[in-house]
């Protein structure tokens, strides 16, 4: 019986038919998706913090408005994604709980601090750029609600990426201090962005199953190479440098070669020792705890109104 379901399921996958919440699915598929989608949602929410850090200090009103809108979009992405995950039978509060207790992860990139305005550019260009590279294939991921959420997310993300690039472009055409600010920012964000694609394929045990179930459609290394290839071209427009002396076009491979990644740093940050892990989690926990009375009041009020309506109807 279970075997039959599994066959039908895999068959659908193979025929590129979307899996919907009411369809039968292997428990491991469900768990993998919950983990991945909630991690993705948490990344949007935690990702609001490093950029939110510069809203009050944006250098002009136009940039302030754009940044506000961008961070608001991220909250919106969080909403879509939490909703998609909820279709798999987990509540938003449960997912928050996993985040706050450290059980669920979020993208490690947000554990780095934003130290200058140029970081709003580098995050847009590199971090959102890497995210898009990961996410575009997810628009065709096998689970319907996730795929549909990603379509909306990707549309906005590519807009964000252009805005980020434009911040860097403006700085790169500015005075010496601004150019330096832009270069410094790229120096700090390049390697963490490269790490966003996750461990190398041979050290990524889940990849194979995810590919079979068409949750993923490309391996970490494939996406990373694609990202490097794109950035290595775009940096030329900025007239700035990617901080990798080994970055070089390889005619034979038809790709850019690049230097070794510091996986030690990657694992340190994943394990909680990044520059801002503690602060990010504390900020989220504080928002949650400080908001408890608001949520309770809203429920209490809603219950009263419901009673009123019931009584009136009776």
């Amino acid at each position, binding site marked *: 019986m279970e075997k039959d379901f599994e066959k039908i399921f895999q068959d659908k996958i193979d025929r590129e038919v979307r899996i919907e919440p009411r369809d039968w699915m292997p428990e491991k598929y469900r768990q993998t998706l919950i983990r991945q989608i909630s991690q993705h949602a948490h990344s949007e*929410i935690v990702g*609001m*913090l490093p950029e*939110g850090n510069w*809203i*009050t*200090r*944006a*250098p*002009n*009103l*136009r*940039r*302030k*408005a754009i940044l*506000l*809108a961008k*961070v*608001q979009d991220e*909250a*919106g992405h*969080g*909403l879509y994604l*939490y909703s998609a995950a909820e279709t798999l039978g987990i509540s*938003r509060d449960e997912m928050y709980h996993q985040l706050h207790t450290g059980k669920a992860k979020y993208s490690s990139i947000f554990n780095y601090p934003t130290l200058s*305005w140029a970081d709003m550019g580098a995050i847009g260009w590199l971090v959102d750029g890497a995210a898009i590279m990961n996410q575009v294939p997810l628009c065709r991921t096998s689970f319907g609600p996730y795929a549909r959420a990603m379509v909306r997310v990707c549309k906005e993300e590519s807009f964000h990426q252009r805005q980020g690039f434009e*911040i860097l472009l*403006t*700085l790169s*055409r*500015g*005075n010496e*201090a*601004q150019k330096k600010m832009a270069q410094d920012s790229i120096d700090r964000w390049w390697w963490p962005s490269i790490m966003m694609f996750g461990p190398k394929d041979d050290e990524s045990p889940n990849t194979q199953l995810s590919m079979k179930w068409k949750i993923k459609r490309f391996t970490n290394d494939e996406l990373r190479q694609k990202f490097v290839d794109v950035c290595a071209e775009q940096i030329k427009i900025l007239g700035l440098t990617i901080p990798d002396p080994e970055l070089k076009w390889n005619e034979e491979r038809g790709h850019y070669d690049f230097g070794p990644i510091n996986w030690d740093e990657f694992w340190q940050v994943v394990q909680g020792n990044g520059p801002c892990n503690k602060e990010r989690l504390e*900020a989220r926990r*504080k*928002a*949650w705890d*400080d*908001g*408890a*009375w*608001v*949520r*309770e*009041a*809203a429920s*209490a*009020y809603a219950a*009263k109104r419901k009673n009123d309506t019931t009584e009136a109807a009776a």
Partner: protein
Amino acid sequence: MLSPKIKYLLYLADNALILGHRNSEWCGHGPILEQDIAVTNISLDLVGQARNFYQYAASEIGNNTTEDSLAYLRDVREFKNCLITELPNGDWGQTILRQFFFSTYQYFLYTALKDCNDEQLAAIAEKSLKEVTYHVRWSSEWVIRLGDGTAESHQRMLTALDNLWNYTGEMLIPSAYEKEINEALAIKGADSLAEKWNRKIKEVLEEATLPVPQSAWSQQGGKEGMHTEHLGYILAEMQFLQRAYPGVEW
């Protein structure tokens, strides 16, 4: 010396910018994700309104004045916003209550302005009024929800009322330049602002099971640049980049 019209435009702009700034401090820290989005959205609307007013003021002032030179290169004593906009956010209840007080004021003010005989000002007011109508609805619903929610939320709203009430009068007491503009631009209904504001506030507070405070004393000064000690910190933060890297494009 600035003309009454320029002062008036700066008054409108500064109110929107500073309140927008305070609301934006919530971004990423709200009690509920949907409400985080809502308060950020209001912040965005307010910054947008501020830009419109600043741009208009800048065109009136001339001399290479821009929206950004007005927002980023004036010091505390030149800002004209009401004191209530610059007060610290306090808890979510206080933020909400301030928004309700101020949006209600903006609602009646913009309603009057949209029919004034200054075309550009009327157009900005009309456009902004759509946004503010939503701000009033959103904030009043929350005032009711929190006032009539739990014992704790009720108590917190009482504290918020106590903290804010003395700062509400300033909105409604016209400065010299407001009086001049009310006359010059034939702004109808400016003299009934206080009455309308009080009626609406009373209505919502009652539904929220909250008392309407009786204190008649008003903190004032913002309209003439006499601020609280908070504004200096807001500006130090907000203006840092423009001050530290003067005269460049961003």
